[in-house]
């Protein structure tokens, strides 16, 4: 056995032993729930109360000895599955391994299925089926529709037809027909983006940059710090724009200005990098908090 394999095996066994100890002795890795009765009424006027059921409510571990509180089996299994999935992904740090590949495959499958289900229930049913067959949509799926929306809108046959054409992309012979909905997609994106980017980003940013070099307060005094801030921002934006202006040679004075622009850009990239790192570290600490606090029950 290789030395590294031996070390990892010992670590894994020790980790497994610790988990067993935590689970059996400390009773960690459990989710406690309480049953809450739900009374449901019929949507049909005059009908009597139709169904009753119970839903489970998660309770803090401190209340586990109270009456009516029990271990929620599905949530406890879920907690363990989530923890083992987290560890399986972290196992990639040791190297590409079958456990990671298995979990990655599960992730791909679940993600694709999740996206399809969300698209189906949140878009296709209310906004396509609901427009074409409003009465059925109300009677089957309990879509809350206004009186004016109760007649079928046949214009929605066009997106339905385009959607079918889009799915033809998977067919070897009819895939060229998928260009039509794709063209609609591209055209709509271009149309929306053209206006929104020009309005919010181009004009908006220019407007925000047009500000006074010299700032005076309400009492008439010269606000040195505010003036300096504005000057830095204006000079910075102009110098960065000069750097991005490639139609003239960056020589002489232009070269100095564009060099200043590069410095401003470096400050931006440095700060952006720091923010990205911090975002990832925050996610990492979130996962570690889940493993130690939620799963193992170790207070942090």
């Amino acid at each position: 056995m290789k030395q590294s394999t031996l070390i990892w095996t010992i670590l894994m066994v020790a980790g497994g032993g610790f988990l067993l100890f935590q689970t059996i002795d400390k009773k960690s890795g459990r989710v406690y729930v309480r049953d809450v009765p739900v009374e449901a009424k019929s949507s049909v006027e005059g009908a009597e109360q139709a169904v009753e059921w119970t839903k489970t409510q998660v309770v803090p571990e401190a209340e586990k000895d109270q009456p009516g509180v029990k271990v929620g089996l599905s949530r406890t299994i879920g907690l363990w599955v989530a923890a083992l999935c987290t560890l399986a992904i972290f196992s990639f740090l040791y190297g590409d391994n079958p456990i990671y590949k298995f979990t990655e495959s599960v992730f791909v499958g679940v993600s694709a299925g999740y996206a399809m289900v969300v698209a189906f229930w949140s878009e296709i049913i209310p906004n396509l089926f609901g427009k074409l067959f409003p009465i059925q949509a109300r009677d089957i799926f309990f879509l809350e529709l206004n009186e004016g929306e109760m007649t079928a809108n046949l214009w929605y046959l066009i997106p339905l037809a385009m959607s079918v054409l889009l799915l033809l992309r998977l067919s070897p012979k009819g895939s060229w027909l998928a260009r039509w909905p794709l063209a609609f997609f591209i055209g709509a994106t271009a149309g929306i983006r053209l206006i929104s980017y020009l309005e919010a980003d181009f004009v908006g940013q220019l407007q925000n940059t047009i500000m006074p070099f010299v700032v005076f307060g309400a009492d008439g005094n010269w606000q040195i710090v505010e003036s300096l801030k504005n000057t830095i921002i204006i000079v910075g934006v102009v110098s960065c724009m000069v750097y991005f202006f490639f139609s003239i040679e960056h020589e002489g004075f232009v070269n100095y200005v564009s060099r200043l622009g590069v410095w401003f850009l470096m400050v931006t990239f440095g700060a952006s990098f720091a923010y990205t790192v911090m975002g990832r570290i925050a996610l990492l600490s979130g996962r570690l908090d889940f493993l130690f606090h939620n799963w193992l029950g170790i207070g942090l």
Partner: protein
Amino acid sequence: MKRTIPLLISAVTGFVLIGTAFIPKFVDWGNTAMAWFNILAAFAFILGGGNLLKMQLQKISAQQPGWGYAAVTLIAFFITLFVGLFKVGVHPNINAAELPWSGDFLEEGSAFWWLFEYIFYPLSATMFALLAFYISSAAFRAFRAKNTEATILLVIAVIVLLGRTYAGEWLTGSWLPEEPIMGFKEVYYSDFRLPHLSQIIMDVFTTPGMRAITIGIALGVASTSLKVLLGVDRSYLGSDQEA
């Protein structure tokens, strides 16, 4: 015809949506186009699922290396699809008890919610968290103060990183007093504490760079959109051989 009709569709759709910003009469048309766009986007997810299915089945039938993982993907895909589409474990809406499909598909306690809460979310969060290790290791290897620009980037990154954590307060919180610097009534020694310095960098020095980049992106998007709508850029249609 294979290329003309798509060009026409994209031009008409795009210009109608542009027109909604200038002509009030077009506003309803724009809203309708947006609703259609959202429906097509939803079908694009179904297309994506179908494509995944096709690729994984090809992998399995050809018994390519790692075909077992393709089978795992398919099983996970079908289970998610089944529990989500059939709303397994979802109770009816509280106001429509006789309609079994009236409940929310993401209702807490349902099978689909379980898959999201205990598989999808932990896996996606951990995948992104894993990048923390690689981004740090890449930075450690790549960051060198070789010239002025690299030094600025390095110094700013360190200041912002320290300033946005407790380390910044711990390093500079105590020995920089809250007293004005001699000759400047508005500037205090405490302004040079790392958290404050980091805030100033974000507010004053990062803004120009972000603004210039944003303006550049906006101009780029506008010109690319116009090229697409006028039919100058047809790359999205692919080649004729593809059809």
